[in-house]
């Protein structure tokens, strides 16, 4: 027990209090449920900072809360292992979670499920903290599944809407594919190392062959790909936007989806030992580039942000893939702030438009909601990577790390991805906040800036979105104690050239977006209706047809085919065995009953045969 225990358990208390309120219908709890969340997560936040300062002095905190499983050679306990990596994650999770709690007071105000929402938020925060605190693979897996459960519950929060319920199930099943590999990975770790403890496992890595490590890291990567929504398991994340917007900010942008990156960074010794890292990079680059192209064509404000999240997670995976673990974590760190900011900002927009999410029906909103618009633009600039905003530092480090380590193909696609990022975010901002007002008069009356509980979190999150980038040097030094970082030094001039190239491309993207969507010199139809570009546009607009292909292959093809095979097997083999036993018994009865003639002489004959048999047996044996 210790500080780590308190940090993790406090949000659980919030979950239990609010949850009991829901279960027993306590009226007095209903509209006070946010107090539990605010107080407990706030306390966790303060404790996390306390832990961070402690760890900064060079201490590594280890705690053992209680033994969970002791069985033969397997022993796993709940506990905490707080090194610099965990301390950073604790602060990020509790910080974002606290402000999302605060924001939700305003956003969910009129929702009948107000208390249920805060209960789920508490559960999620608890699970995420357990995940990042874990000292062994089993607790990591517990947290991993628990965040998956909370994510499922919160995506399907408005479960009466079929699309939300479907999206929740889809997220859960897609994650299951990854988690299946993850479980196998954990089993493989135990098989090879004889322990699940991070410390013991990582200290024995040197004695294991690279092929074995590759297999283990491939299986673990499967889990990370599922949870962090990377290609090819990425399709659940855009659909997860059916959940309430604060959830999109907290779970599906800032914290949970980053768990995959965190896990890979945590298991860096295993990944370093195998040959699988280039695969991580390829997956990351495909996702970073592919999602950015899809984001260009979407019209739903939250979906655009969701694809941008995919793309940024792809950058983190690309960084992991070239061995720049610390830069991946740094991008995770800055991304958590500005992406939460962007999502909460989009929540304000949706709130003001009374639920409308189509950017074609917005426009000119800057006039009406200046605070939200300003914060949103700060978040956008941070995401695009305009200096001195946070995203510039982290993204630029990733891009130059790919270049420095000689992965020029990765580098090319990431740089083009940076251009596309500027393009789609520029499109989003110019369409939503500037230009003509495309909404109707009825909505105009409703249009208003959000209350303070919804703008203050935005303002607070803008601060790290602007300044977190300057922590880069400190961050690198701090994380060096727990995470390796393999980046070759670049000559200063080359590095400067790369920075200038990336920034100018980002500015170019922004300029093109402004030409098309702000000054409206070129109509977007020029591209969408162009006979050459039209097929490309349709391909992107339909998200590369991933949903359709998966539906065809796995639901209609494999699912239907396997269903037929299983049905056949069940009908003829399983039922055949069961019915066969019955038929055999029945047939034996039919035959044997013929001996029951009712004639005394026959019975005597049986008796005689039996007697002779027994005598013969006795004589022989």
């Amino acid at each position, binding site marked *: 027990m210790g500080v780590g225990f308190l940090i993790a358990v406090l949000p659980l208390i919030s979950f239990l209090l609010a949850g009991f309120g829901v279960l027993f219908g306590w009226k007095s709890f209903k509209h006070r449920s946010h107090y539990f969340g605010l107080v407990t997560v706030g306390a966790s936040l303060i404790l996390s900072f306390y832990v961070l300062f402690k760890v900064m002095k060079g201490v590594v905190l280890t705690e053992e809360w209680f033994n969970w499983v002791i069985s033969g050679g397997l022993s796993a306990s709940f506990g905490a292992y707080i090194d610099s990596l965990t301390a950073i994650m604790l602060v990020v999770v509790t910080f974002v979670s606290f402000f999302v709690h605060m924001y939700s007071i305003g956003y969910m105000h009129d929702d009948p499920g107000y208390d249920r929402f805060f209960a789920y938020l508490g559960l999620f925060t608890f699970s995420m903290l357990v995940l990042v605190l874990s000292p062994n693979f089993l607790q990591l897996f517990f947290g991993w599944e628990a965040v998956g459960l909370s994510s499922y519950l919160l995506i399907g929060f408005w479960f009466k809407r079929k699309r939300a319920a479907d999206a929740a199930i889809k997220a859960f099943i897609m994650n299951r594919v990854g988690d299946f590999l993850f479980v196998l990975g954990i089993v493989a770790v135990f098989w090879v190392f004889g322990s699940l403890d991070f410390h013991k496992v990582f200290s024995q890595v040197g004695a294991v062959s690279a092929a074995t490590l590759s297999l283990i890291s491939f299986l673990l990567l499967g889990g990370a790909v599922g949870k962090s929504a990377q290609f090819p398991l990425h399709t659940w994340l855009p659909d997860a936007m059916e959940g309430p917007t604060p959830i999109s900010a907290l779970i599906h942008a800032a914290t949970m989806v980053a768990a995959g990156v965190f896990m890979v960074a945590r298991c860096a010794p295993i990944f370093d030992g195998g040959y699988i890292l280039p695969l991580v990079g390829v997956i990351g680059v495909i996702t970073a580039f592919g999602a950015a192209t899809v984001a260009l064509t979407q019209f739903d404000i939250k979906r655009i942000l969701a694809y941008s999240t995919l793309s940024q997670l792809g950058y983190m995976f690309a960084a992991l893939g070239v061995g720049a673990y610390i830069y991946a974590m740094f991008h995770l760190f800055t991304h958590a702030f500005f992406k939460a900011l962007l999502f909460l900002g989009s929540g304000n927009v949706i709130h003001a438009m009374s639920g409308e999410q189509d950017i074609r029906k917005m426009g000119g909103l800057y006039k009406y909601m200046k605070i939200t618009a300003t914060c949103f633009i700060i978040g956008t600039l941070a995401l695009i990577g305009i200096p001195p905003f946070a995203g510039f530092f982290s993204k630029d480090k990733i891009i130059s790390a790919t270049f420095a380590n000689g992965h020029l193909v990765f580098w090319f696609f990431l740089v083009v991805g940076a251009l596309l990022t500027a393009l789609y975010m520029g499109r989003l901002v110019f369409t939503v906040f500037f230009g003509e007002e495309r909404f109707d008069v009825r909505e105009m009356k409703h249009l208003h800036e959000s209350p303070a509980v919804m703008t203050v979190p935005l303002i607070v999150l803008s601060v790290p979105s602007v300044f977190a980038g300057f922590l880069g040097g400190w961050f690198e030094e701090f994380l060096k104690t727990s995470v390796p970082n393999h980046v070759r030094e670049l000559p200063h001039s080359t590095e400067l050239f790369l920075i200038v190239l990336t920034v100018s491309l980002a500015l170019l993207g922004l300029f093109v977006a402004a030409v098309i969507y702000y000054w409206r010199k070129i109509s977007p139809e020029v591209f969408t209706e162009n006979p050459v570009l039209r097929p490309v546009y349709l391909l992107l607009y339909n998200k590369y047809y991933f949903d359709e292909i998966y539906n065809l292959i796995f639901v209609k093809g494999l699912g239907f085919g396997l269903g037929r095979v299983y049905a056949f097997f069940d009908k003829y083999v399983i039922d055949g065995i069961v019915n066969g036993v019955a038929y055999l018994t029945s047939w034996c009865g039919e035959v044997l*009953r*013929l001996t*029951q*003639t*009712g*004639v*005394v*002489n026959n019975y*005597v*004959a049986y008796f*005689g045969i039996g007697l002779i048999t027994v005598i013969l047996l006795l004589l022989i044996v």
Partner: protein
Amino acid sequence: MTPFDFFVLSGLLFAVGLFGVIVRRNVISLFFSLELLLNSANVLLVGFSKLHGNLFGEVFVFFVLAVAAAEAAVGLAIVVALYRYRKSVNTEDFSILRW
């Protein structure tokens, strides 16, 4: 006569009796065959008595005869009852307990 001859005689009697019990359908004939079975045992007892040179076996034979007489009395009463019931003493007419 050696004791072995007694055994052979007993065995033959038993075989004849068993054959009768299995083959004959008339209940009275069955009874005759049953008496043969009993008496094959008696012959054996007498043979053992001679073999061991005492009278224990012959004493047993008397008991067996007494029991056989009682059995015959009860059995014949049953046969009479059966005949009254079915007007037949053929075992094939008493097969209502079959499948």
